[in-house]
């Protein structure tokens, strides 16, 4: 066991370093962990040998995979089901456009400009079609739009975009067999039963130090994950859907969500993101930077083409629509999950993986850097003061997601 503990200590040391960097530099921990993983592999690989990090060890792969599954579940559980029920048509229209246009454009660019194989091109389309719910959520809070119809619709749309990504990941690369039908049938049954069963089960047996809730949820996630991989699909697909169907029950239990976050951020996701970063080949990026740039430009342009008309369709003022469109950037979570899925299933090679992850990171970071370089207070961009004031008042009166509570007066 000495080797296992030593390797675990090395990974947790890297995770701690990444967390410190994220605190010092005020960047997302996921971004910091990916970069630390890349540099660690580069440095350790050069000094000691590439196998030192043990990325192929079964327990590292298990923790990493569990990190992706639980993180995806938590992302799905952030959905607001009440808003989704009332706004599903608008959300579906914007969300599908936001997914489909970048997906098709990026896949076409990978196929016809970069001459990637057909499966690799589809994978590039999936990895670059994602939208960060968190970025849009943060922007909505800053503008004070999270309580407006526009803001709620757009946030719900982001979940549709991510749902498109996980569905594409789970369906495009899976062979359609009887196993697929069994998985789909079991999925429909589980997704229908869980929202009814889970709150009743938790009320009867939950809230004890034995953490029954965490075991129950992990059982559901691992069980459906096993069924998905048995059907040659992807385990994050049922995880995201379970998160969405339990958003109205488990997602509202802040104490439970916080305990799951502790498990996820404290142990699981560092293994996932550091491992994802360790597969990035810096030499490949240096050798062909144009490939990365082509993917980045394709992603940003396609996202703009897909989202801007949709926001205009719902009568968003031009400046807000433009700003929202620019910030509907690629999410690190779903972008990196898609790319790593491709690498681990042999759909893309390490160089292609490196270009995709670099494009995912760049499309997430660039809007922030540009916005800060040409800083102008966002409320001066031309938003309607009246609407802003109305949304501000309603936020103070409406409890709910964290941002809305944060906005409230604390006196």
């Amino acid at each position, binding site marked *: 066991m000495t080797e296992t503990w030593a390797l675990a200590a090395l990974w947790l040391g890297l995770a701690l370093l990444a967390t410190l960097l994220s605190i010092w530099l005020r960047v997302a921990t996921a971004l910091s962990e990916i970069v630390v993983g890349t540099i660690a592999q580069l440095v350790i690989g050069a000094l000691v040998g590439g196998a030192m990090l043990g990325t192929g060890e079964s327990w590292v792969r298990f923790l990493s995979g569990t990190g992706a599954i639980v993180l995806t579940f938590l992302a799905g559980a952030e959905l607001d089901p009440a808003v989704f029920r009332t706004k599903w048509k608008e959300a579906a229209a914007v969300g599908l456009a936001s997914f489909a246009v970048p997906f098709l454009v990026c896949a076409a660019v990978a196929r016809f400009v970069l001459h990637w194989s057909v499966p690799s091109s589809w994978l590039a389309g999936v990895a670059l079609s994602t939208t960060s719910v968190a970025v849009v959520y943060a922007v909505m809070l800053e503008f004070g739009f999270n309580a407006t119809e526009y803001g709620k619709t757009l946030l719900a749309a982001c979940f549709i975009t991510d749902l498109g990504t996980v569905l594409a990941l789970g369906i495009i690369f899976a062979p359609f067999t009887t196993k697929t039908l069994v998985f789909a049938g079991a999925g429909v049954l589980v997704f229908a039963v869980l929202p009814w069963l889970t709150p009743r089960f938790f009320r009867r047996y939950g809230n004890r130090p034995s953490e029954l809730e965490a075991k129950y949820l992990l059982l559901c996630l691992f069980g459906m994950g096993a069924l998905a991989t048995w059907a040659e699909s992807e385990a994050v697909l049922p995880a995201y859907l379970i998160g969405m169907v339990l958003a109205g029950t488990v997602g509202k239990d802040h104490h439970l969500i916080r305990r799951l976050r502790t498990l996820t951020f404290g142990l699981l996701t560092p293994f996932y993101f550091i491992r994802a970063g360790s597969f990035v080949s810096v030499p490949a990026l240096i050798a062909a930077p144009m490939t990365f740039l082509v993917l980045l430009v394709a992603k940003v342009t396609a996202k703009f083409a897909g989202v801007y008309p949709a926001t205009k369709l719902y009568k968003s003022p031009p400046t807000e629509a433009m700003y929202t469109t620019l910030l509907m950037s690629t999410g690190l979570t779903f972008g990196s999950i898609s790319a790593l899925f491709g690498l681990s299933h042999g759909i893309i090679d390490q160089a292609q993986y490196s270009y995709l992850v670099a494009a995912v990171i760049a499309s997430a970071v660039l809007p922030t850097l540009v916005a800060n370089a040409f800083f102008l207070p966002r409320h001066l961009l031309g938003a309607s003061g009246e609407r802003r004031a109305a949304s501000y008042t309603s936020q103070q009166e409406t409890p709910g997601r*964290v941002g809305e*509570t944060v906005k409230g007066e604390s006196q």
Partner: protein
Amino acid sequence: MNKKLLIAYDGSGPSEKAFAVALDLAVKCRAELLVLAVARPPEPADDVETEAILESAREHYEGLFAPLRELAAAAGISAVFKVVVGHPADQIVRHAEEFGADQIIVGHRGKTLFQKWLVGSVAKRVLSYATCTVTVVR
């Protein structure tokens, strides 16, 4: 014309000084105080982590506000404490306008070059965009 003062508060030493200066001024001018703390999402905001950070920031600032509330109450000053989300300079300028602040009081903090590049100097940006008097406390 110092009837409404906004204090940008982040729990740092300079912001503690800014609060002390503002409280002193408020007592002299019988002014209202708005103490504003800004929870900044990580860059880039990432799924799940962003909400966790905002929750944690709210609890953190609520804890820091408790002794400040007592100081304001002891001085007989009407004070509102808020935690908002976004870019610090942006939110300070915006809330100063909405509050109708006559003066913004901010602490000055040193930042690394990278932080300045990523976040910018809050005090400098507030000075650039505010439509009222700005005092930077060192």
